[in-house]
């Protein structure tokens, strides 16, 4: 297992992937944080899907972690794309056959890939957290938002909780991506379906049919990142989203174990 993880990390560490991941995480976090603060007085809204987060809310002790938590959805999409590509590419490059000659246990390959993905997600979320926190201070200064409450113990525990929840959500999206990658065995198909599903289908349907977001894995993972909402509890969101993911993972694991490797 350790061997599989070491091999995976060698692939994930490549400069082209690390650099583009850092760029994507920076862009997503920077965008969400700057909109949150710079549009704080705008009637159009400054939060996710046009919600308004007022100056007063930002000045609370939890204010420091809002931008980070709001980045989770897009951060998740980044993770989904990376891990859909990382798994599907093994088929399109034909490299899976080489991996399986050196490690014939397909389950070890799958679990090793999952663990390496989680390690990668920790790094991604840490970068995003550092960036969101520092940008929050900078923009708070620019927009005259008081940061007095941000250095209290309450604020610190909010940041810690936020980090854990965003990490759980990001890993969830990563698993989602791996499921799609293994299912479709083509990076382009897996990524398109993942992005269209999360950004368009889930988004649109849950706007029109309000109850549906209770059953959508992407929406539920965003709720997990937020630590729960008024409508959907944290516990429900966590259990339901991860049940979906576990079921999906089980199905692709069986496929992965049984299917001929003819690419």
């Amino acid at each position, binding site marked *: 297992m350790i*061997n*599989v993880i*070491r*091999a995976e990390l*060698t*692939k994930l560490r*490549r400069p*082209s*992937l690390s650099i583009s991941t850092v760029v994507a995480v920076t862009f997503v976090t920077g965008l969400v944080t700057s909109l949150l603060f710079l549009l704080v007085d705008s009637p159009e809204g400054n939060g996710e899907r046009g919600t308004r987060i007022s100056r007063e809310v930002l000045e609370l002790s939890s204010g420091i972690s809002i931008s980070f938590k709001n980045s989770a959805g897009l951060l998740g999409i980044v993770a989904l794309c990376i891990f859909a590509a990382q798994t599907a*590419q093994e088929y399109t*490059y*034909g*490299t899976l*056959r*080489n*991996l*399986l*000659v*050196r*490690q*014939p*246990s397909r389950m070890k390959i799958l679990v090793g890939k999952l663990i390496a993905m989680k390690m990668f997600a920790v790094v991604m979320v840490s970068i995003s957290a550092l960036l969101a926190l520092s940008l929050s201070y900078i923009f708070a200064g620019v927009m005259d938002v008081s940061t007095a409450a941000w250095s209290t113990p309450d604020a610190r525990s909010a940041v810690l909780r936020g980090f854990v929840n965003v990490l759980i959500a990001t890993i969830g999206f990563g698993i989602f991506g791996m499921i799609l990658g293994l299912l479709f065995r083509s990076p382009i198909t897996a990524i398109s379906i993942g992005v269209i599903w999360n950004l368009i289908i889930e988004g649109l349907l849950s706007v029109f049919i309000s109850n549906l977001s209770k059953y959508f894995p992407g929406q539920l993972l965003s709720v997990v990142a937020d630590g729960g909402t008024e409508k959907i509890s944290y516990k429900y969101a966590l259990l339901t989203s991860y049940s979906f993911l576990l079921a999906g993972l089980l199905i692709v694991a069986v496929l992965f174990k049984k299917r*001929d*490797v*003819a690419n």
Partner: protein
Amino acid sequence: MSSPLAIDVADLSKKYGDRMALSHANFEVPMGSICGFVGPNGSGKTTTIRMLLGLITPSTGSGHVLGESITQPEKYLPRVGAMIEGPAFYPALTGKQNLAVLAKLGGLATDSIQKLLELVDLGDRGDSKFKTYSLGMKQRLGIAAALLPNPKLLVLDEPTNGLDPAGIHEIRTLLRKLADSGTTVFVSSHLLSEIEMISDYLVMLRQGKVIFSGKTIDLLAAQKPVIIAKPENSKDLKKLFEIANNLGKKAEIKDDIVEVIGDSDFSAKLNKSAFEAGITLTSLTPIRPTLEDTFFEMTGD
């Protein structure tokens, strides 16, 4: 068979939909030999190799590699190196990193990587990305990857594809060296001529069926040399044909020549008899058919 076997398969088949990619194959590869695995494109070579490596499940039959059943590839794969259907690597990683991925995965030491790269003539290109490699370099990296575990059995699927004659020669020399040091080599090619001279054994496939498997020298023994005789006047074709027949040789008229089965010693005799019968020959050429021709003769093609 008294010598231990590196590979043996019995009644092995693979069906894709209605098509038999491999149909009830039986063959054996002794330890320590170079075995050529030959057949035209689409004849089932890669399909067979994938089954031997546990990548696809056979539709019928069984097989053993290094004494272990192919249903339990984890028992023999640590001792097997393979390149399947051409080289496949991560384009954004360097040659070295690509080998490191596979070495780490197999729990192998990474310090032999540079030596292996030098062995396949990539010593100074190990730090270039795989996507910048030429086809020949990619093939050679594939061979280096197959050699990573210091294998007892080396399985190479068309390693000479896309190489120039010098490159093909280099690979032949390398395979010979490996076989001499005790590695069994199972190497496929769609061209018999590319590997016949280094193969101790041959397994030949056609449309999913094994049509020859055995020692290369047995196939060579079946080789029949022929003499091509061309009379000055095509009226004499029939007469020349009869002369050859009367001398006890099988002959055949083809266009404006007579093809006689016989070695070069016989050509002097034929020339003399033709001259005595008043036939002038414009050419008389003994030829040794290639193994490919012999082989198609044997299989009635």
